């Protein structure tokens, strides 16, 4: 029988998820994977909001979590559309191929 989870349990899970997402953004060499890693980071934040809310007994954080989900959906749609356009342009999805926007 697992013990009743405390707030710290949720926050630790959230921190782990956020770190995995961040590592993915920095380490992966495929833009689609990077996009997915960003989704992981967003959901880690969502988890924090909901957990803190549950323990404080309020609903504000839950509402914000819904907003984040909505924005994440929109972001995924726009991001994927840009990725398709980039792929058509360069036939690759490595972030290192797209460095022309500089001095």
């Amino acid at each position: 029988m697992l013990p009743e989870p405390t707030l710290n349990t949720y926050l630790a899970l959230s921190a782990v998820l956020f770190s995995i997402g961040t590592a993915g953004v920095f380490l992966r060499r495929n833009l689609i994977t990077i996009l997915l890693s960003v989704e992981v980071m967003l959901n880690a934040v969502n988890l924090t909001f909901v957990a803190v809310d549950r323990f404080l007994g309020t609903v504000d954080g839950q509402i914000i979590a819904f907003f984040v989900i909505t924005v994440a959906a929109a972001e995924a749609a726009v991001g994927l559309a840009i990725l398709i356009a980039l792929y058509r342009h360069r036939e690759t999805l490595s972030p290192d191929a797209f460095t022309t926007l500089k001095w």
Partner: protein
Amino acid sequence: MLLLIPLLPFLGFLINATVGRRWSQGLSGGIATAAMAGAFGVSVAAVWTMLGLEPIGGVRAIDQHVFTWIASSTLEIPFALRLDPLSSIMILVITGIGTLIHLYSTAYMHDETNPDFARYFSYLNLFASFMLILVLGASFPVMFIGWEGVGLCSYLLIGFYYTKQSAADAGKKAFVVNRIGDFGFILGMLILFTAFGTLDFQLLAIQVSQLEVEAGTMAGAGLLTGATLLLFLGATGKSAQLPLYVWLPDAMEGPTPVSALIHAATMVTAGVYMIARNAVLFSHAPFTLEVIAIVGVLTALVAGTIGLVQNDIKRVLAYSTVSQLGYMFLAVGVGAFAGGVFHLYTHAFFKALLFLGSGAVIHALHGQQDMRFMGGLKDKLPITFWTFLIGTIAISGLPPFAGFFSKDEILWKTWSSGHYVLWGLAVVAAFLTATYMFRLLYMTFWGTSRANSAPEHEGTSAHVHGSTGHSAAHPPSGPSAHLHDAPRPMAIALVLLAVGSIVAGFFGVPHALGGHNQIEAFLEPSFHAMTLSGEEVAHAAAVHGDVAIELGLMGLSIAVAIAGILLATALFKNGFGRAEALAAQFSGVHKVLYNKYYVDELYDAVFVQPIKRLSTGALWKVMDAGVIDGIVNGVGLTVRGWSAVLRRVQTGSVRAYAMSIFVGVVAILGYYLWR
């Protein structure tokens, strides 16, 4: 009512400046002349009203507060006009002679195109308007509007033939030289304001009259002496006195009627008027008066000697004007303010007459201004000749013409105030006046016509036909082929001015000749502070010396004038052989005089060239190009240099950006967690 006097010419200016260019010459010239005639009518009515007033505090004056011009805490300057005996003489001269000169101009300028004709009359009207503001203004600032305004119009009219280089240059010269004087004028005005808190002439006079008269030496000079000397600097610029007289002879590049109106009869007398207007102020600064008298008499001498040898008819008249203005300054310098204004008033008649007469000669000869190529015009231009003769006698100072009374008044006042040396110099100047004026008369009207011996128009010196567009209208085919005397409008002006030159002096017949010198009695109240108690002011100037001496000096000055005339007759009536021999014998002196004492060259070397070098060498190449441009370019270069370094940060790699954001967030969070 006073406002109407400057306003009428101003309306004439507005009309001619806007729609006049589309109209015929008759219409635009008619409007301008009518505006002046209207102003004259209003002036007469205003003066008549003023004469009928009861004197308040010894002064009869009409005041008109038009509007509050500047109101700033303690400083309040109303736009106020005042008509008193002094300004009434001025407005009558300006509008009266101004009307005649406008009338004359309608004929003189007929060769101009319609737009140029309208432009000419709009300037002339504007000038009259400003001049009237100058003399009617009740305070320094209002006077200063007119003072600067007439300077502007003078500039515009000297440069009327602006396509000609020499005319444009002469206009600029007049403007720049006047600016030097105006600088002094403004400073003097500010000193007075700081000291007395008002710039109204009457209020200033009342305050100053409470003060002690300052010491007459340079060491004992105080605030009033400083302020009046600065004001006098302004007067030397406007009234062409040493050392700022150099612009007036060059001003002859303008059309001849302009020379008559602005550079002889009215504007150049503004300095004399300004000093007479502040008679109380200047009387309290004896050192300044001394300076004024000396400058005046020296100017009269210098200009008179230069006038002896010039060949351009208008330049001789210009130097004569400078010389006569010197007389006026001598008068105010010895405290004879009424004498100075009296000479101003008679001089306006005969000098306008002489200029208009010379204009008629130039008109007849299609732009010839060099007297060496005139001669023999006595019978061909009878109206011009007779009126010119009257003007010449008047300026030479023979009784009973106007010039005699005013000039003798000045000489007598100089003598009776104890300035014997100045008196002697003034008598020499009177001798010179008679000589150079009769030289001009003989060269122009006597002998045989030398018009045909004139070199081709383009070959002559730049000043020969400086003033006119006539040579363009009448090609030089036989200059003496059709010599026409002055057309009717010109003739009317000449005859009326000739009458004025004869009778104008009768208002100032001295007591010694059984007259009453009404003009002095009339003007006297203007030269004293208003007494609030209404008591009669003690007349300080009443130095009624020995009548016998006065008559004797009068006889002497007549004798001197006759001697001058005889000398001119001997030298110039029958050919110039003797004059040329004399010039050859004293070729050194002649050369110096002919070249105007090299004053222009001196000013050029001492002031113009060093300033030019300073401007080019230091101000332009070092200050402007080096420092100013250096700062501006330096700012740009610094920004560009730093940008070159900083833009390396922008690599274009998305992950580098993400990493920098991450590091930043971690750093900020870390700061808040562990601070």
